[in-house]
């Protein structure tokens, strides 16, 4: 089994949150000021813009589900969380993982399949995790994170900590059995979970109206969970709703549910670019783009300066990530088990 690749130089990839974070010590992103939040949204936007480019050039094998357009949700929610809190994320997870404070350089290295990636190159986009920051993982299976979040929330509460877990998921996940079960479980256990539904209007090509009987918040409420709908293109609106739910959960008031109306600017997945799909009209896309969450915050912050800062940071991060070594193929089975004999290989040795 491979040992932790200690001593890898990550100096060039200073975390975006800056000062609060000492080397090697995981601290969630500080998102307390508008500038912090704008910076993080910019980082997410530019990160995924770069990632799209890397998918095109093949630096990222496979592809990604870009988060572009939805930045206000991740940032607004993570701004409401405290240092000991946790999140569960989705297939469209870059925004959540970054907003919670993961090192963008290590996330880039992960997407490029490098040993110094967040998951040592073992997870890729859909499984990015940083447990030291309370990120219990992106997830390739829609709806799968919600019940994990409930269990983590219950466990923390049981051990006397006032940890809250925020669980992100899309509108499509509203129709997954395990997520609906999780709402009930959270309700009856009064688990400190904030369910965050990113309603971007579509599950791949299927519009919400054709998929969801009733409404998102009506559903949550029916399980006994207070639920609100907010403008998911407005980081402050999201943050305020999240803060209320987090405060209630933290003070033993049980779970909450925040539906964020948002939109993805890009295709569902980078593969979609190759197909001629017509499920969204250009007008619809343009109308949502006109409500861009970054543009909304821009006037209130030193935007040009931050933009330059983020660009420089990403440039350094990208250079670092691409210079990092790829994992050793002999270690393909590493980390499968925490203990016991190593798995038998596919051919006897």
């Amino acid at each position, binding site marked *: 089994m491979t040992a932790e690749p200690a001593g890898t130089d990550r100096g060039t990839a200073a975390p975006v949150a800056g000062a609060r974070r000492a080397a090697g010590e995981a601290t969630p992103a500080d998102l307390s000021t508008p500038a912090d939040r704008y910076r993080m949204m910019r980082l997410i936007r530019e990160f995924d813009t770069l990632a799209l480019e890397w998918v095109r050039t093949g630096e*990222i*094998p*496979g*592809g990604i589900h870009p988060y572009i357009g939805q930045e206000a949700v991740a940032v607004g929610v993570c701004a409401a969380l405290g240092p000991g809190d946790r999140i569960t994320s989705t297939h469209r997870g870059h925004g959540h993982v970054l907003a919670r404070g993961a090192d963008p350089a290590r996330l880039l290295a*992960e997407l490029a*399949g*490098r040993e110094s990636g967040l*998951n040592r*190159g*073992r*997870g*890729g*986009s*859909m*499984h990015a995790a940083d447990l030291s920051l309370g990120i219990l993982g992106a*997830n*390739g*299976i*829609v*709806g799968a994170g919600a019940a994990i979040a409930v269990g983590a929330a219950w466990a923390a509460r049981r051990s006397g900590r006032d940890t809250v877990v925020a669980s992100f998921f899309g509108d*499509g*996940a*509203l*129709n*997954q*059995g395990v997520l609906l079960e999780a709402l009930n479980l959270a309700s009856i256990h009064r688990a400190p979970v904030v369910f965050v539904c990113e309603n971007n209007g579509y*599950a*791949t*090509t*299927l519009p919400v109206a*054709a*998929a*969801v009987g009733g409404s998102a918040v009506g559903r949550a409420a029916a399980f006994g969970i207070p639920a609100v709908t907010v403008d998911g293109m407005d980081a402050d609106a999201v943050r305020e709703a999240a803060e209320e739910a987090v405060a209630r959960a933290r003070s033993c008031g049980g779970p909450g549910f925040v539906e964020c109306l948002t939109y993805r600017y890009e295709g569902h997945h980078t593969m979609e670019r190759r*197909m001629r*799909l017509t*499920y969204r009209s250009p007008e619809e896309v343009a109308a949502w783009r006109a409500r861009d969450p970054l543009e909304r915050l821009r006037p209130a912050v030193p935007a040009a300066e931050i933009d330059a800062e983020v660009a420089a940071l990403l440039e350094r991060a990208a250079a670092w990530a691409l210079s990092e070594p*790829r*994992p050793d*193929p*002999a*270690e*393909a*089975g590493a980390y*499968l088990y925490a203990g016991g004999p190593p*798995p*038998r*290989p*596919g*051919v*006897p040795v």
Partner: protein
Amino acid sequence: MTWLSYTKALNRALGDAMAADPAVCVLGEDVGAGMAGPTLGLQARFGTDRVLDMPLSEQAFTSFALGAALTGMRPVVEFQIPSLLFLVFEQIVNQAHKFRLMTGGQARVPLTFLVPGSGSRLGWAGQHSDHPYALFVHAGVKTVVPASPADAYGLLRAAVEDDDPVVVFAPAGAMGAREDVTGQLPPVPLGSARVRRAGEDVTVVAVGHLVAEALQVADDLDGEVSVEVLDPRTLHPFDWAALRASVGRTRRLVVYDDANRGCGVAAEVVAVAAEEVALLAPPRRVTRPDGAVLPFAPDLDRASQPQPHQLRDAVRAVVK
């Protein structure tokens, strides 16, 4: 003559099946848009009441298909990811597979489950790269893994016409294949293997996309070893007679299977050969490791799958 792609073969099979029988319907996620390939254009041709876009509720729509199958329809259910079969294992095995025996034969259960893109798709990592056909063989659900476009067409047609649940795995590694075909393609009966290359010294049983690799390795070894390549095509019910005939002659066996080693299809094939044939050399399996989870990084992903050079070495070892 048509230069038919594997995906197009699946697409044509569904179209022909729907044209032939109004009871055939298709349902799944994004099947209207034809995202995965096999359903492309079908909704425009047959309408939204025969090609149903389903919400993200695999368990419910699998049982929905069962309910429809019990009352006269022949649904085909498409899944976007092989591991979604884990999510509906209850519905396929405990409900659909068992229904007929438990009711004393009161019903037929004509249901097809189609997984376009099973196995590794580079870059899709741990939760999207499974090849879990052995699970269905163990449970007793009819299971096919077509290796070529013509077989993809023929086996999918046969699956849809079958009166029992059938899971059709279309390996990602095979979906790029193309083949020259002429005229109307015939259905391929479930349970019939195919000798893809005759040989004398050793039988290689290869599954799905690995059939092409096995043929290549056999060619490479030409002159050195005479390799027979057997494509079982259906993993359950398996064409044991074909295995017996081939291995009975060569008396040497290697199984090349892109699935986890323990309790896999390769184990079953080796076990039957050991039980029934006096082998001249110990049989070999070339498979994924035990309990494999495919890591994201391409080199690790590939290293977790069986490799042609491993097959070559295994063939050489059994004829030594």
